[in-house]
């Protein structure tokens, strides 16, 4: 005999209660975004601001292709770089789809920059224990930059370590 709709509803309700974050659990804010076909997150504390992808970027000569240029943020300038090359992802940012992209103003202890992401998906609080250590099977080129893995709406989201990203750029690994 199949479940009645009521039983299905009750089961759904029970599951949804299980999803509720226990207030005693430490929570972290994550900024979740898409790069190509993959999903990534940065800790909310490392993202100062999110700007629309249509911001005017001034090209800076004499830079590698991963550097888009600089933007004017309220009278100051901020660099804009693409994460694609560092994470060995194909660059998919085209002029026609710029309106879908976002620029995350990210900062580490010693550096800051705008990071172009293909699409901002969500900003949410998650229980810290929902972020699992990165799996052994993670591709080698991602290992230095991924600090954890999160399941979000059925998607595997790699949590990036912003210090490791900036450090790679600073030391010329990217």
């Amino acid at each position, binding site marked *: 005999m199949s479940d009645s709709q009521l039983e299905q509803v009750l089961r759904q309700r029970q599951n949804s209660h299980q999803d509720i974050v226990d207030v005693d659990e430490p929570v972290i804010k994550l900024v979740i975004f898409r790069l190509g076909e993959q999903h990534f997150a940065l800790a909310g504390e490392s993202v100062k601001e999110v700007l629309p992808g249509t911001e005017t970027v*001034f*090209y*800076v*000569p*004499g*830079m*590698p292709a*991963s*550097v888009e*240029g*600089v933007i*004017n943020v309220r*009278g*100051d*300038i*901020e*660099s804009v*770089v693409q994460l694609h090359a560092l994470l060995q992802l194909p660059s998919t940012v085209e002029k026609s789809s710029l309106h879908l992209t976002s620029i995350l103003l990210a900062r580490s202890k*010693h*550096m*800051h*920059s705008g990071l172009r992401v293909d699409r901002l998906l969500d900003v949410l609080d998650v229980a810290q224990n929902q972020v699992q250590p990165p799996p052994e099977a993670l591709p080698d080129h991602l290992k230095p930059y991924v600090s954890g893995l999160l399941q979000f709406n059925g998607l595997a989201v790699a949590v990036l370590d912003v210090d490791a990203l*900036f450090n790679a*750029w*600073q*030391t*010329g690994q*990217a």
Partner: protein
Amino acid sequence: MSSRVITYLPVVLFRHQGQCYAIEASAVKKQGQFDRLATEVLGNFSELFTAPLASAESAAVQWLELQGNAGQAWRLGLSAAAELIELPVQCVYPLPAILAALREMPALHALALFQNELIALLDAAVLQQMLERKSTECKKTL
């Protein structure tokens, strides 16, 4: 000794392949029309981007005489006319740290956003070193 507040930075501005570059005017001694037979230059600015003797559009039409590292002057060939302008200091920005780390042109020293255009501010001393290195490499290959 009194310290004067600087409000404008005089620079010599020139264009190359659609981009704006500038050198602090205090480093520039003279400028003149390039004469292929009579003008001796340490190098053309375009050589920093392309192989020497490249296309006609990168051929020098002007020169700037700059104060050299060891005291003697040197000349830089430009493929477009240069002009003296004054940049308001609030338009001038240090190179963001990540760009300083990633720059492929060591002479790139600072940036300016002026009249809705980006100006790459170059360090003349480093530019001289780059052209000297380029010139030495060319001599070795010949």
